[in-house]
């Protein structure tokens, strides 16, 4: 195999800067910490949901407004069958509770100096090898095009684009209000 090390310089620069911004924001929101993630799962500290919902709403409303001005980018919707996604999500939740990291925050945690995140990183590499071994079994299942195939919520439920955004907005308000009540 002949290899190229880097793509063109614009792509390299863009990728590094994007990653750096993302990593910086993760660190500044303290999402790279075990306590923050697990406190969210224990429903004590809602930092993770505050960041996630704010980000999703900003981007979601932005996409909606772009759609109105007719310059919407092409969406990149997953083609994975719903049952597999549900099963994967269940495993992910268990892994998240045990480690306190997601794959991205694990890298940020390594930067922060958490030694267990380094072990976790090796664990993820081993896990990918295991998945590689299981791939012949899963590849057929992944090809199935079920009800959720490349569908957005509003396409499937045939509703307005705004419904999910309104629901998430209400959730964010509820979290913000209950947090303010606690600190008073």
């Amino acid at each position, binding site marked *: 195999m002949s290899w*190229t090390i880097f793509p063109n310089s614009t792509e390299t620069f863009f990728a*590094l800067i994007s990653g750096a911004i993302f990593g910086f924001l993760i660190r500044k929101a303290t999402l790279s910490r075990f*306590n923050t993630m697990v406190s969210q799962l224990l429903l004590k500290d809602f930092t993770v949901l505050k960041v996630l919902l704010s980000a*999703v709403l900003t981007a979601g409303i*932005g996409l909606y407004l772009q759609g109105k001005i007719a310059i919407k980018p092409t969406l990149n919707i997953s083609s994975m069958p719903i049952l597999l996604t549900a099963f*994967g999500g269940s495993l992910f*939740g268990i892994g998240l509770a045990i480690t306190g990291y997601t794959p991205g925050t694990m890298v940020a945690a390594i930067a922060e100096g958490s030694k267990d995140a380094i072990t976790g990183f090796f*664990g993820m590499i081993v896990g990918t090898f295991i998945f590689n071994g299981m791939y012949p079994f899963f*590849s057929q299942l992944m090809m199935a095009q079920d009800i959720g195939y490349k569908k957005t919520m509003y396409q499937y439920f045939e509703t307005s684009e705004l419904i999910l955004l309104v629901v998430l907005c209400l959730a964010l308000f509820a979290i913000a209000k209950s947090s303010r009540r606690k600190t008073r």
Partner: protein
Amino acid sequence: MLNFLKKDRLCPYFIGVLMGLFLLVLLNFDRHLGTCCGINKITALISYFFAPEFTTQSSYLNKQLSDHLIFNWKFLLLVGLFIGAKIGCIISKDAPKFTQTIWTEKFGKSARKRHLSVFFGAIILILGARIAGGCAAGHGLSGVSQQSMTSVVFMIFIAITGVPSAFILYHFKKRS
């Protein structure tokens, strides 16, 4: 401004909005925000380095190398993520020294216990991410902002298993 950035923890809503805007820019440039794809690449490269024949014969790992690129967008994103988090650490003052008190209160300070648990937990984590075709950044941020059905289902199921698992693992105090 610099004093504001030096704080250990910034307002989560503010960070979220910045992340959302940044995500919007990436989506408009048709770029992916996903972290486990970088790990695929790293695994495939390591595998190819030590066992090239095995790698080319494994359909999944071989697919990761099909672009013949060592540092692709996803790998570089991870490198950038590390650098960005490092910069965030360097400029932060008053960062707490130890941030795993929930673990140590329940399971003690044994490093071996922690490392073993993280190792196996990470295997479960990445298997879940691969089977679902994405992870928290890919599905959770990109997917839900685009209102993808699979991404919303993914996040719901993380909560369905994650919250009870955390309660079982950490909520009940250690019986002394």
